[in-house]
């Protein structure tokens, strides 16, 4: 069983790496990783310049109590805050494309009949697709992790401590989980929909709902703060209506949870880790997709006589 899953997963992995759409999104994603560090470096330079200029003026004015450089108090990983947003947007789209491509490939190629005349079960096929998708996304995230690790060390002018490295690793592990959820959604629609364009459009609509609509309902008062990696400072309304709406939609607000986990990990603020809800979402999505695909005969050939 495992060897068949491995064969399908490896085939999927190799095929995705040759796909143009995937290569384009991967390039954008990795560029964003570098860009995030550049923004961090730019921020550091600006703050240092402003600080040095201010210190000069304060010294010239005879001020003796010079405040310390605020950049020195920032956590080294905080310069990667923008990665939270990039993963929220580009990462999720990349996940959808990878998941969609995984199932649409066989349909486009028209190889289902040959494939299922071989001794493989539908379980092995679906698990192989999931494993291939996960493997591909893991590679993307691993490369992004290395870029972030190197760039953060360069920007902060010293090698990251072990705890920061572990925190960065955890951040990317959760990012992988988040992207994988969207891969499963893409995979599910590609398997279910008869139309290729609908198969791609439907998960994008779900992505918009999950990433933008539901969090707006959840936060109610801070919709514009959604894409801000730092939490909204506005206090949420406490009326019964808002409390009820939040209670209903919060379990579906994965992007908010991801943002919260990401921010916590990068800024060293361990006050909130909604890990459980993220894991629950991941399990429910993967399990749900697997169950529905098992029930639905995705592999049956056309009813030609």
């Amino acid at each position, binding site marked *: 069983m495992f060897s068949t899953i491995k064969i399908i997963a490896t085939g999927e992995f190799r095929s995705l790496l*040759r796909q143009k759409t995937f290569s384009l999104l991967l390039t954008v994603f990795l560029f964003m990783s570098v860009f995030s560090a550049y923004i961090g470096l730019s921020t550091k330079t600006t703050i240092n310049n402003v600080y040095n200029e201010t210190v000069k003026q304060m010294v010239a004015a005879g001020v003796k109590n010079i405040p310390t450089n605020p950049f020195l108090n920032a956590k080294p990983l905080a310069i990667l805050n923008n990665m939270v947003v990039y993963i929220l947007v580009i990462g999720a789209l990349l996940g959808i494309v990878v998941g969609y491509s995984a199932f649409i*490939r066989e349909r486009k190629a028209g190889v289902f009949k040959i494939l299922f*005349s*071989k001794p*493989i079960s539908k379980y092995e096929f679906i698990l192989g697709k999931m494993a291939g998708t996960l493997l591909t996304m893991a590679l993307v995230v691993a490369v992004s992790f290395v870029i972030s690790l190197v760039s953060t060390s360069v920007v902060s002018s010293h090698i990251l401590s072990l705890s920061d490295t572990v925190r960065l690793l955890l951040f990317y592990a959760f990012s992988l989980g988040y992207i994988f959820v969207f891969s499963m959604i893409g995979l599910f629609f590609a398997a279910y929909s008869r139309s290729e364009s609908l198969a791609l459009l439907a998960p994008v609509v779900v992505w918009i709902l999950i990433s933008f609509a539901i969090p707006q309902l959840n936060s109610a008062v801070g919709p514009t703060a959604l894409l801000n990696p730092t939490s909204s400072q506005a206090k949420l309304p406490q009326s019964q209506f808002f409390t009820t709406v939040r209670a209903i939609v919060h379990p579906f607000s994965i992007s908010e949870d991801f943002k919260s986990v990401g921010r916590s990990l990068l800024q060293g603020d361990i006050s909130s880790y909604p890990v459980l809800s993220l894991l629950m979402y991941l399990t429910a999505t993967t399990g749900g997709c697997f169950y529905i695909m098992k029930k639905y005969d995705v592999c*049956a*050939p056309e009813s030609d*006589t």
Partner: protein
Amino acid sequence: MEKNNKAIIDVRSVTKKYNDVTALDDLSLQVFQGEIFGFLGHNGAGKTTTVNILTTLLAPTSGTASICGYDIAKDSLEVRKNIGYLPENVRFYENLTAFENLEFFAKLSGIKKPAEKIKEVLGFLDFQGFEHKKLGEFSKGMLQRIGIAQAIVDDPQVLFLDEPTSGLDPMGIKNLRDVIIRLNQEKEMTVFMNTHLLMEVSKTCTAIGVLNHGRLIYRDSLENTLKRFKDEVSLEDIYLNIGST
């Protein structure tokens, strides 16, 4: 290859319905080891549905069937280990080379050393030198060869061919016919071939079955058929004679 009395394909009272349309109606059929069985019928007679059911791609509405003693419903994976299948209008992953496609399917068939086996099969088919070309560049005849290669890469006992000569030029048809006969004689494969080309049946098959509106209306060896309908000028006349009865 001489046939023996062991039914390698055993179909019993199989019915397949697509909503209100009955594609197969109480089909019972036996194909014996070593036969090259030509399954004749007009378009829409139910030939492809029969092959889809026998290759475990489609579940029958009722009835049972077994291949090499394995039930198609209960032991579908065992059935698949013993069959090769070339669908009509065979298609592959076009962004992969011929070798990569064959390697993928060979691995799925459980071949431990796929490269060696692929070389052997392509040698048997006299089709070497194209392995590392992408299949998007292949002609219909070349694709058909790769289709045969993927079907026989694990030396199956039964080979299912669905309209294998469809779209081939005369040379391609002759080559394919030679390959089918050699597979039967040299590799002892039982061949089940859907076709509506009577010329092919007369030159390739050892037994025929005729399907009409989902019902098997005739089944015998080619030799007996030609004896029985000795007054008919051609196999086409025989087919029309059977079809009209």
